[in-house]
């Protein structure tokens, strides 16, 4: 089993403040890795460093290395645009493109990147992605409606479909289920298990059960530090560190 994504001494800053501190983590290929930790501990920031989205924030920068298949994506010769095509992302808040229809939203990554895609191919990918994101049955009769006309939870699944449509190798999900009802959440969790064979998945979650159910590995972050990383089973049944135990049993603080 290969290490798809590896971080080495990864630091992330907002101006002078260091939000992520010297993280060394390994995300094995074809596995789901959960990132847990209290609010504000740097989960989103850390995950955004993995596809070079952190530097998009004004005043933010990162240092250290992130190796994708052994190649450092922070190397000066690497184009961040190419990195992001290989490492897709679903954000905490749903962000459909308001001017685009549902199907255009799903196809956005394809049509904006390569003009020469046939109509039939596009429709096939749209349907496949929407099915994977458990949204197809709800929207198949009005694909031409604006993406913003969906409910919050549907919008989030639309964003999942949009990320899947470009077929990235790694999928970063930042609390993808925080706006979803239990049924859609269950569907997304099923989706994770389905996708695992082809994708490497990193999921940030506040939901311990979700982390325990879906992930193979779990990393616990606290105040920007990586406190503990290991097999999910071990983290949840036999954590080595006191802080981890306190957090997952809800005895924090």
């Amino acid at each position, binding site marked *: 089993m290969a290490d798809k994504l590896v971080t080495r001494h990864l630091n992330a800053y907002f101006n002078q403040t260091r939000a992520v501190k010297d993280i060394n983590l390994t995300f094995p290929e074809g596995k789901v890795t959960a990132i847990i930790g209290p609010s504000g501990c740097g989960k989103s920031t850390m995950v955004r460093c993995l596809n070079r989205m952190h530097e998009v924030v004004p005043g933010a920068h990162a240092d250290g290395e992130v190796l994708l298949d052994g190649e450092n994506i922070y190397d000066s010769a690497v184009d961040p645009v190419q990195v992001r095509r290989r490492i897709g992302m679903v*954000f905490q808040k749903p962000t459909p*493109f308001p001017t685009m229809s549902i199907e255009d939203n799903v196809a956005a990554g394809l049509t*904006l990147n390569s003009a020469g895609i046939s109509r039939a191919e596009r429709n096939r990918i749209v349907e496949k992605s929407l099915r994977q994101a458990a949204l197809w049955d709800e929207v198949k009769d009005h694909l031409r409606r*604006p993406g913003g006309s969906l409910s919050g939870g549907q919008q989030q699944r639309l*964003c999942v479909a949009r990320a899947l449509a470009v077929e990235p190798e790694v999928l970063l999900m930042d609390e993808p289920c925080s706006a979803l009802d239990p049924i859609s959440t269950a569907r997304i969790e099923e989706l994770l298990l389905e996708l695992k064979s082809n994708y490497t998945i990193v999921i940030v979650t506040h939901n311990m059960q979700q982390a325990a159910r879906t992930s193979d590995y779990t990393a616990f972050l606290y105040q920007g530090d990586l406190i503990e990383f290991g097999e999910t089973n071990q983290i949840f049944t036999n954590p080595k560190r006191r802080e981890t135990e306190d957090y997952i049993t809800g005895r924090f603080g």
Partner: protein
Amino acid sequence: MAGTVYKESSHAFRKFKSDFMMAVTVAATIVTLIPLFLVLGYLVFKGATSLNWAFFTHMPTPVGEKGGGMANAIVGTFEVVGIACLIGVPIGIGAGLFLAEHRLGRFADTVRFCADVMMGVPSIVVGIFAYAVLVHPMGRFSTLAGSVALAIIMIPLVTRTTEEMIILVPHELREAALALGVPQWKTSLSVIVRTALSGIATGVILAIARIAGETAPLLFTAFGNRFWSTSLVQPIATLTVQVYTYAISPFPDWQRQAWAGALVLTVIVLALELGVRWVTRAPAKAAR
């Protein structure tokens, strides 16, 4: 603390205060609207009685002769304003996009400051400027000089509205597009500008309405022409200048045509403003 019980008299007094303030605001509104309706009413009255088909289809007659129309000036206004848009809209939107994307920094601050100053410059000054840099070196008045003058007036308006509209686009949308592996420039054009498009279009239409009514800068630049001309390097007639020339003339028939011209101009501007309402309404309905 227990709830206060108001006496009957204080209730009556508060009611009086409320009614009084209401009356004051209604009165202020009426005072504001009276001149508007007087101007519009008088314009429609004088303009409509002076308007005839020949006004749209005929050329101006020789001095002192009755009849004729402003066909050349109507076409001229569209030409001068149209070319001004071709120059001003891309520059304005481009500058606005730049300001929105590089909001901090000395250069952006300078550009923003210049745009604000330019908005305050009297239009006649812009006319003199265009005269100095175009009319004088070329040795004659021209459509091009008029369009450049109007474009200079238009650019800061378009720049600032574009910037405001783009800033309103949530940062998350840009990130969503970038995270799909869409390059920066394409994100700006296909996602950011497109999302802000109805707002930008509104700004552009309002700027067009503004320049369509300009007279002073055209006096030095497009100048006016009693004959048919659509050439870029010849003087050209425009409604505003024609209205001005006819209105101050001693001939009653010309004065009549000035009213007609003023009405046509007002209707054009009004149509543009209605266009704004239409542009801003349509996507709002589709989005929710």
